[in-house]
């Protein structure tokens, strides 16, 4: 039926606020979800990612636009008639039923014959690593176990796609990381698409085939994690994913490169290699990720930025150097831990010279929508 398992066409939804007025949660969103992909919806709270999820599962009725699942228009269908299942943030396990009855619920509703139902319950539990726990009650399980029961319950009915609403947010760090791997593996095994909602960007980067960044009801960028990280389309995405140093200024052509001149006298050199090329005199923002800086000596070749060091933080893996330019602009640089000696001497000096490769500088338009339009062209 086509390459897309879910299609959202100009999905629009507004909510009325208790104090009066409305808030538009989804602003005419178009989204195509591929078959067998792990797609993450990422964004700050209130960006619309949960509303988007609910629009697909049916708990939110769109004001405008359509939802198609596997080619069928399900916009008017209530949740219990959509071939989609959800793993809820608080798991929503039925407290008055044991694990077996929780997991088998969808099959019981559908009237599946007893033997087959029990078989499939057993298989689902085994798949999530909880074989044999049919008779336990939810309150007797740990957080991680409850999470898996919620998973097993959602996949047993063989939905066409699985929605996961911040399922790992209640788990502690180690368990969380273990579950991330398990979810990835599970998705590959089942062969269905997972749409995963989170506000944790690290999680989004490590797990997704594709990543959609949302803000204020609009998809800012949707692409592979690598691309979103290296080539964000606007300042919002740039600062939401990873740390960033942003330099707003005016562009000027210089040979094959572009120079962005900032108001406080800095000149950032960017080598244009695909991506957006600003015209001469256009407003542009240069993005340099902290890890793209290196500590260089006075006579270094290539562009550099001089800073006064405010603080050096050791994180185990690397050093974070927080400083500012003579004009007071804050800069963050991340230097690998092996360069300990260089960092120590810079710290002793109180100053540092940061070098960077122009090819690693990413240019963003000063106004976000411009780039999106031009890149789509």
């Amino acid at each position, binding site marked *: 039926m086509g390459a897309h398992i879910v299609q959202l066409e100009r999905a629009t939804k507004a909510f009325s606020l208790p104090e009066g007025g409305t808030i538009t949660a989804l602003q005419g969103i178009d989204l195509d979800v591929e078959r067998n992909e792990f797609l993450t919806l990422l964004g700050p709270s209130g960006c619309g990612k949960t509303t988007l999820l609910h629009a697909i599962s*049916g*708990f939110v009725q769109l004001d405008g636009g359509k939802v198609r699942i596997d080619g069928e228009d399900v916009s008017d269908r209530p949740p*219990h008639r959509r071939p989609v299942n*959800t793993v*809820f943030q*608080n798991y929503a396990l039925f407290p008055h039923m044991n694990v077996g009855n929780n997991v088998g619920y969808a099959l019981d509703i559908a009237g599946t014959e007893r033997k087959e139902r029990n078989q499939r319950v057993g298989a689902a539990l085994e798949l999530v690593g909880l074989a044999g726990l049919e008779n336990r009650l939810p309150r007797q399980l740990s957080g991680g176990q409850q999470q898996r029961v919620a998973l097993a319950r959602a996949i047993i009915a063989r939905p066409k796609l699985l929605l996961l609403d911040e399922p790992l947010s209640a788990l502690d760090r180690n368990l969380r990381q273990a579950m991330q791997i398990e979810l990835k593996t599970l998705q590959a095994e089942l062969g269905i698409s997972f749409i995963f909602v989170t506000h944790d960007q690290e999680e989004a980067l490590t797990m997704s085939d594709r990543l959609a960044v949302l803000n204020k009801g609009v998809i800012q960028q949707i692409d592979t994690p690598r691309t979103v990280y290296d080539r964000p389309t606007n300042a919002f995405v740039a600062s939401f994913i990873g740390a960033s140093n942003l330099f707003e200024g005016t562009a000027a052509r210089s040979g094959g490169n572009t120079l962005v001149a900032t108001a406080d006298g800095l000149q950032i050199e960017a080598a244009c290699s695909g991506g957006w090329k600003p015209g001469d005199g256009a407003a542009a923002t240069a993005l340099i990720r902290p890890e793209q800086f290196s500590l260089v000596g006075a006579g270094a070749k290539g562009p550099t930025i001089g800073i006064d060091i405010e603080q050096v933080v050791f994180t185990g893996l690397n050093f974070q150097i927080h400083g500012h330019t003579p004009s007071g602009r804050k800069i963050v640089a991340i230097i690998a831990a092996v360069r300990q000696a260089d960092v120590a001497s810079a710290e002793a000096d109180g100053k540092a010279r940061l070098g960077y490769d122009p090819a690693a500088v990413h240019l963003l338009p000063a106004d976000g929508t411009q780039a999106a339009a031009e890149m789509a062209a």
Partner: protein
Amino acid sequence: MSASTLRGRRRTQLGILLGPASAFLAIFFLCPLLIMLVYSFLEPGLYGGAEWAFYPDNYGRILGFANPEFEDYDPVYIAIFLRSLKIALITVAATLLVCYPAAFQISRLPDRWKNFALFLITLPFFASLIVRLFIWVLILKKTGFANMVLTGLHIVSHPLELIYTEGAIIVGMVYVFIPFMFLPVYASVEKLDWSLVRASQDLGANGFQTFWRVIFPLTLPGVVGGSIIVFIPALGNFIVPAVLGGAKVMMLGNLIEQQFLGARNWPFGAALAMLVMAAVLAILFFYIRFEARRGDDAPVLR
């Protein structure tokens, strides 16, 4: 301060605090009940009061078998007991049906309206029972409001016999007991985790299935609690049948009243009261077992 004086002081304090109430309840609550138990086994005196003789025939008479020398088998008392049981059960069911949907709707309202609604529902509870009942006499009687409306709208051609029927008693009792049923049911409904309802829908259950498999079982504690709080006073009630049943429909309560203030057969009246007690204790016994089996949650009656 040594440990023994501390303990002594604590014991004195405890004694002062609990002593008076305990004594009071012992004398004026437990004692009368025990005396009533004893009385139910006594022989009725000729002009009221009781003779000090063991007389099991009070209970016998309830079952229909009094002293065979003087009385024939008369199951009228069993009939009254069964009728009281029936009316009480119907009252419980009707009150539950009336209250449940409203509890549901109110629990979904925004906070301010919720509190106001609760206030409105509990307010009539504080009005005098007798006043609330007497209104129904005026509504249900032949020249009353209900018949006025029915004949006025030409739904019926002549006034209906509404009052002094079992139906009238049930309506009256439902009206009186709504606050008792509503609050426990509402407490349970309000605690319902709505994400469970969404999970059920997500897994393919339609409205009815979701209600029956998820919502109702989870609100059961409130339903059971409310049912008991209504059943107990409904069974032994005598005011509602007196006012709305007249002489025609007699319940256990009326019978007991009659024995005490009319026929002056106190031992028999006591025996009947013991019957009511027995039914109540049986219900409470089953309730405690039900609660124990459920385990964790605290009993609704608290």
